[in-house]
């Protein structure tokens, strides 16, 4: 039983300090869990975007490799319209990534990717198929590598 003021103060403050330490520990754990969840969600979005780029790259390469053979006008229009639509969806994905504070401007790369996949795709026989395939590959790689770079810069790998 405390009789003096100092002893009384010690008994009163002790539990408060314990509660404070528990609260600090909890907030650190919560902060870390939130960071991991945000990183994981961003990684998921990034992976889906990279998958989309790779799918469009493959479709583009297959189309241009077939371009020396006789493609019907229906095949040409289906490819071009589908590709231009999917590229627009890809740009929407990139805008979603930017909203997760991944600061990157891929507009220039996207325009070059669209150019290599759809420029004169209505009359593909006028272009060199190998040049086009290499260009599609190079543009797709640039987009994927820049996305990976910016992700690694934001979420540095643990040592």
């Amino acid at each position, binding site marked *: 039983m405390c009789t003096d003021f100092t002893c009384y103060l010690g008994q009163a403050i002790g539990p408060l300090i314990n509660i404070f330490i528990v609260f600090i520990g909890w907030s650190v754990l919560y902060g870390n869990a939130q960071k991991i969840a945000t990183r994981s969600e961003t990684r998921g979005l990034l992976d889906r975007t990279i998958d989309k780029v790779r799918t469009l790259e493959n479709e583009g390469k297959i189309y241009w490799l077939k371009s020396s053979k006789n493609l019907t006008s229906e095949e040409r229009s289906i490819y071009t319209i589908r590709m231009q639509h*999917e590229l627009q969806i890809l740009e929407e994905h990139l805008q979603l990534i930017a909203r997760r504070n991944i600061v990157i*401007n891929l507009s220039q790369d996207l325009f070059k990717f669209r*150019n290599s996949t759809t420029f004169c795709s*209505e009359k593909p026989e006028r272009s060199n198929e190998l040049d086009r395939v290499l260009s599609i590959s190079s543009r797709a790689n640039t987009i994927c590598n820049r996305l990976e770079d910016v992700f690694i810069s934001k979420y540095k790998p643990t040592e």
Partner: protein
Amino acid sequence: MTVKTINIADEFSKVPYGRYPDDGENNGERFRNEFLVPSLNEFEKIIVELDGTRGYGSSFLDEAFGGLIRKNIINKENLLSKLEIVSKFESYKLEIESYISEAKPEPLK
């Protein structure tokens, strides 16, 4: 200043495709001749709204906008000062500016 706004999705097509008429009905040459050229002749500024379509292919954009320079309809400086492209997709603006900058006027016959 007289201003004309052209919304491609509402006034032209939701699926613009191709360069020339033999590629399809909603091609870049038709858009240029039926929408851009009359507006450039009549108005001091034209605003082209791109959003609302299923996307654009490079041939369409090149023929519609770069074609204005190749066909000697307007010079680059005038076109860039009169034309405003509105879109939430930044890549289209860059692409159109690039085609306008790279286009060379065809020799007059």
